[in-house]
């Protein structure tokens, strides 16, 4: 049985992290190279973690499923990265960034963690700038910023509409520097199949070499998971198609609690689905809502082309419902508002499942060139996909599964409930509560990797210096490898008629319909049944061509879908348990008279951390959230 100890340092909010750093144990430079650390994932938390741990002198082994670390899906983040620099003199501060994130997350995150990420945010921008990330600048040569949803200051640093690419490649360059220095060894095209726990401590991983199919054992004194989120469970999402939950899921099955699995962000602006073959929904950055106005026709079923609908017949519903924040309300609010209009019959486009995002007024006011400079690549991408020129007519957008606030439960040190297993970035649950604000994911990922984990992992490793290199010929490694091989053989031996993709699409639909933007008791109960049936069918009728000892992409997919079929059940269980609405988790039974999320702080101001219990239902552990520094309020963006 696990126990949750969040290990939040005592003292005033502003002093907790300083106090922690002062008291944390250190590892002598000569001892660091005797300590091995495994990092799985090379995105905006994994690459920073690996490179900074390498810089410190640890012996780091890094794994990713892609052919090179530069392709981790953080590369696709578009809009920007937040920091409390207050370069605009508009009233920003560490406290305000902290407060915005706590409020944006609908008061379901830990105060101490959020304050800490706000504290390190400025250093992240300094570091990226120093290593050559070309953030957008003013004519005078200083860095510039823009606004994002859920805030009233301009604190988002960006590189056109491809900030994720620029910061990820910055992190990749640091990683390369350490590979050259010999402190980091890179293992690309490896998929983690299991976690190895010895005497209660995470000591290694089992991976499959995706080229040869070989199963490999790798050991370390500590293991760090930076494996991202699980939004691809919806099949259609804004994520890379190979993004998956398997590493985190394997950790869960080895004893790491999974926190708030039902907290999933549905991003309000993606290119709507066009056909049944579509493999993903492409994101259109939230930054577009700085200048784009969201509207639908005032008349139901108005099928006229957007440009033929006169101003007075347009319903700018976000501006109407939320005059204070207008088009820049947080993502959960914007998504639900779009769904509400479409469900009521006001949607646009061929399917009626879309709303307009219109740049007409911004182009009129600022000129086409200014808009092109800010969002050029997004307009191009939109045109490539849809054939529509958004300089002339509005974009059509619709919500899509995007980011998972839920993830492995971690304490203040970013350690999971398995000693020596850390989770950083999107893979953990820590900072965004029930809804993440735009441009906070790069901030949290990079902050965890560069400026938090290096301190907390050293504190853990200090007593480990007496432990010699971990051997891989132990019974625990043997057992984990056998389990991984057995599972692969099982996937290959079903020899049914439906591919992994067939099952993935069906699971995605169940999740989207019943555990997506809105949820009900009846729908969730139905979903539990449907997922159970689908999982049974999967193990009876799965078709995986080819063999295990070769590059086999169908086998890779099958393993990931098998894990999603289990994770889906946990998400639904969590959503059922939480009989309140908060942030992105919207239970229809719990809403205010004007259809906003209605929290129940008396009963649900806690983190729901689920413990794996073999074939029995998972065990719920509650971490009560204590708000000592902010007042719990009904969130309002009106």
């Amino acid at each position: 049985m696990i126990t949750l100890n969040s290990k939040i340092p005592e003292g005033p909010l502003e002093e907790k992290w300083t106090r922690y750093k002062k008291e944390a144990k250190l590892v002598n430079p000569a001892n660091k190279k005797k300590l091995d650390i495994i990092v799985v994932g090379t995105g905006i938390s994994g690459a920073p973690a690996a490179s900074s741990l390498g810089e410190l002198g640890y012996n780091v082994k890094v794994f990713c499923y892609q052919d090179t670390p530069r392709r981790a899906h953080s590369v696709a983040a578009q809009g920007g990265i937040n920091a409390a620099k207050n370069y605009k003199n508009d009233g920003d501060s560490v406290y305000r960034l902290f407060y915005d994130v706590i409020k944006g997350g609908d008061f379901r995150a830990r105060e101490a963690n959020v304050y800490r990420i706000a504290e390190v945010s400025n250093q992240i921008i300094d570091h990226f700038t120093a290593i050559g990330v070309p953030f957008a600048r003013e004519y005078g040569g200083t860095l510039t910023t823009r606004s994002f949803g859920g805030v009233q200051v301009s604190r988002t640093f960006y590189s056109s509409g491809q900030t994720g690419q620029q910061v990820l490649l910055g992190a990749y360059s640091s990683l390369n520097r350490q590979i050259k220095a010999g402190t980091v060894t890179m293992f690309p095209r490896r998929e983690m199949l299991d976690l190895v726990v010895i005497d209660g401590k995470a000591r290694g991983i089992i991976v499959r070499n995706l080229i040869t199919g070989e199963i490999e054992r790798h050991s370390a004194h500590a293991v760090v998971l930076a494996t991202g989120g699980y939004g691809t469970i919806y099949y259609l999402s804004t994520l890379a198609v190979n993004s998956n939950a398997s590493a985190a899921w394997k950790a869960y099955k080895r004893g790491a609690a999974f926190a708030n699995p039902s907290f999933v962000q549905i991003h309000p602006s993606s290119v709507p689905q066009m056909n049944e073959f579509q493999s993903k929904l492409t994101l259109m950055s939230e930054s577009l809502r700085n200048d784009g106005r969201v509207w639908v026709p005032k008349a139901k079923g108005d099928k006229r082309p957007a440009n033929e609908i006169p101003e007075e017949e347009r319903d700018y519903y976000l501006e109407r419902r939320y005059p204070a924040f207008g088009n820049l309300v947080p993502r959960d609010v914007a998504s639900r508002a779009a769904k509400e209009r479409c469900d009521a019959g006001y949607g646009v486009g061929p399917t009626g499942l879309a709303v307009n995002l219109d740049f007409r007024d911004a182009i009129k006011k600022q000129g086409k060139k200014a808009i092109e400079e800010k969002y050029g690549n997004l307009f191009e991408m939109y045109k490539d996909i849809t054939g529509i020129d958004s300089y002339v007519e509005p974009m059509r957008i619709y919500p899509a599964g995007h980011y998972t606030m839920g993830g492995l439960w971690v304490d203040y040190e970013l350690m999971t409930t398995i000693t020596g297993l850390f989770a950083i970035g999107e893979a953990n649950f820590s900072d965004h509560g029930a809804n993440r604000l735009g441009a906070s994911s790069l901030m949290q990922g990079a902050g965890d990797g560069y400026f938090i984990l290096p301190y907390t992992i050293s504190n853990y490793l200090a007593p480990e210096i007496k432990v010699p290199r971990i051997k891989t010929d132990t019974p625990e490694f043997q057992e984990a490898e056998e389990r991984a091989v057995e599972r692969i053989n099982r996937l290959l031996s079903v020899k049914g008629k439906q591919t992994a993709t067939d099952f993935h699409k069906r699971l995605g639909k169940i999740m989207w319909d019943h555990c997506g933007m809105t949820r009900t008791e009846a729908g969730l109960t139905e979903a539990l049944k449907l997922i159970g049936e689908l999982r049974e069918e999967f193990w009876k009728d799965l078709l995986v061509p080819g063999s295990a000892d070769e590059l086999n992409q169908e086998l890779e997919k099958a393993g990931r879908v098998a894990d999603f079929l289990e994770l889906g059940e946990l998400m639904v269980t969590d959503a059922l348990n939480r009989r309140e609405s908060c942030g992105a988790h919207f239970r229809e039974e719990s809403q205010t008279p004007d259809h906003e999320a209605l929290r129940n702080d008396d009963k649900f101001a806690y983190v729901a951390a689920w413990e794996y219990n073999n074939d029995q239902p998972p065990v719920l552990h509650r971490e009560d959230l204590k708000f000592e520094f902010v007042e719990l309020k009904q969130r309002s963006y009106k």
Partner: protein
Amino acid sequence: MKLKLKIWKQKNAKSDGAFETYDLDGVAPEMSFVEMLALLNQTLAQQGREPVAFDHDCHEGICGSCGMYINGYPHGLVKGLTTCLLSMRHFKDGETIVIEPWRAKPFPVVKDLIVDRSALDKIQVAGGFISVTTGAAADANAVLVSKKKSDLAFDSAVCIGCGACVAACKNASAMLFVSAKISQYALLPQGRPEAKERVRAMIAEMDKQAFGSCSNTGACEAQCPKQIKLFNIARLNREYYKSY
């Protein structure tokens, strides 16, 4: 749409490959090229035949995973697009499409349309970084950078490392790829302290990985899905001469 696909099939790096022909029905014009291939693979799998291996991931033209010759052109003939963003609108019903992996000595075929591009990583490892250790940076606004130079650096920095420039070049030169990184750092004051060492190290590694020389035909620029400009190569050469 109905298509005839001639696709390169090769079991692994050691075996010989050959073209195989597939008939594919039910292709919709709004599909992307990789969605079309996914449809092919779905069909093949259901028939118990082996799917075609190919790399793809983000489906929005930014991760650089996908890449193949489409009728002889890297990422196809439409300018400024990766394979994943190339729409089937650009093809006609009944058309035959020839699909091959990158052909370049430094990119050995792994399987079917997948090649090993780790040679590109090795060049980056040799010098594609600025040596600032985490925590050592001054305030981001301590060094001013002109907007013009910063924008130019960004234009070079958008390279996705897909390898199309190498595949397009008759010499299999990686000069556009290397010059993009060199230019990004050469244009920024942050990159100047190590400029000499960087350009020499990256060029030396490029040569070691057996990429060919640049003969200035401009095929790389024409096929680059991110439209990285040829003048980056001029800047690379200048940086290289200046380093001696």
